[in-house]
């Protein structure tokens, strides 16, 4: 899939915003993910062209960061923090709960393509543990009941 015109424009804009064009690589990859749902090979190749960078560098950078998905993922990534502060307050239970409820293992996507369940390292919101990130949003002080409501809410959003 080709990068959309709008995304291309934003990448080219990012290219001019830094003292060195290679600095635009992370902004470009973020834009690519927003545009295509994950950092597609075709998209990365296009970025290499737009930023005049070696493709291997784009691939090497993209694969270094855990936020960039290398494969298609669900509409919502449920990134549950597994690091100590969240774990001490039961995040492992929440992962199990989500896994059971959604019928998928960590790393998998629901058959309807709506949710991908992942565990991530510290999200930097330990005071509100356990925490999960989905989309741009942090969901805090989680309990199974809250998760139920969040999933319902996201499903509704996806339908809308």
């Amino acid at each position: 899939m080709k990068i959309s015109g709008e995304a291309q424009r934003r990448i080219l804009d990012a290219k001019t915003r830094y003292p060195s064009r290679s600095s635009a690589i992370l902004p470009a990859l973020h834009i690519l993910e927003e545009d295509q749902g994950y950092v597609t090979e075709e998209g990365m190749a296009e970025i290499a062209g737009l930023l005049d960078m070696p493709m291997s560098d784009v691939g090497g950078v993209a694969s270094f960061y855990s936020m960039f998905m290398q494969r298609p993922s669900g509409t919502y990534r449920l990134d549950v923090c597994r690091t100590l502060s969240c774990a001490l307050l039961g995040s492992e239970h929440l992962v199990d709960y989500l896994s059971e409820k959604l019928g998928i293992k960590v790393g998998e996507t629901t058959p309807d393509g709506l949710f991908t369940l992942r565990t991530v390292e510290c999200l930097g919101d330990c005071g509100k543990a356990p925490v999960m990130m989905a989309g741009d949003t942090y969901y805090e002080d989680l309990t199974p009941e809250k998760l139920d409501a969040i999933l319902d809410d996201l499903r509704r959003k996806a339908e809308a």
Partner: protein
Amino acid sequence: MRILFKHLDVPDIDDMDVYIREGGYKALEKALKEMSPDGVIQAVTKSGLRGRGGAGFPTGKKWAFIPKDPSLKKYLCCNADESEPGTFKDRELIVRNPHQLIEGMAICCYAIGSERAFIYIRGEYIEPARKMEQAIAKASNRGFLGERILGTDFNLQIQVYRGAGAYICGEESALLNSLEGIRGEPRLRPPFPAIKGLYESPTVINNVETLANVPHIVLNGGEWFASIGTEKSTGTKVVSMSGHVNNPGNYEVDMGTPVREIIFEHAGGILGGKRLKAYVPGGSSVPMLTEKHLDVGLDFESMLAAGSMLGSAGFMVMNEDTCIVRATLNMARFYAHESCGKCTPCREGTSWMVEMLESIEEGTGKMGYIDRLVDIANNINGRSFCALGDASAMPVLSSIEHFRDEYETHVSERGCPFAGDRGFALRGG
């Protein structure tokens, strides 16, 4: 004393107008109009302010390293990567009071002769990044940033740069690589960033909290700041309290405040009225301490004397139910996941430690693994390329030092001796 959080009760202090009404940007004006760049550096030096990211390097000294040569471009990078487990203070400082940070950065740039600054913010902080960008736009419109700031010939552009999920990018040289569009691995030093940093130019890298202190120092003077806290650890520290405490959150306390007060007064004591088992005082990269260390003062020197470090002052508190092997395994996994892979000891050693900890926790470990863990940790510590390796050794070394018997029980009883959740339960569960 509250310095950084002094406006926290003021509604809408994140709004620039409110911030100005409360005295905001006065420090910038004072610096630009009444002080020389060197004067600012002197004030910061006199204040005794030390880096709040963890290393505690004197801020004034760091700024003074920047060459004065006006033909050289210089950069300021604000480190808002905040990825140290248990630390969430910068997030609050940004979200609750973004202009305080902008003002601090502007003063720093004036002092070091920089016209361009970046805020490297971790990729997951999407809302904080937006908030920061909005605040920068407002400040630019109002002439606190941009060309000819406050009518002087000082210009400054600040940009937010989002990371993408890599703990290592909080390491200052890895941060520079990441910002330059290279894989976020740490750089060889020398050259040091003050000489060759971002884009090969002299660069200061300061933590959010460090920079947020600057306006207050400029307004009230270095002596005032130095009078707060202890002799060598001046000012206040924002501590992030998490884990098994009743009132998790950020608290600003004077340097030197006893840990007991922080855990039992500010954070409301141990969750569920349980006993404290262990706490990590400075993010997971510092050695854990125990009940025996409750009267230690929260400052660089006292923490070091107690066998730990101040670090980022991200407290992770564990109650008596907590299986220490499991907690250590959790932290070890973190480092194995976040190791950048550049150097051998860290790349190979962190995952080896995970394997052994897993075996011990699952009941397949051997008694010899305990000493082997110590040996491996000691061989990563001090031998790896950057401090991530050293950090990975701390939870392992300190937990075995304080709780060796618990490790031994895991081995001899072929499994975790703790019942049920082993201290990893949902609240109230």
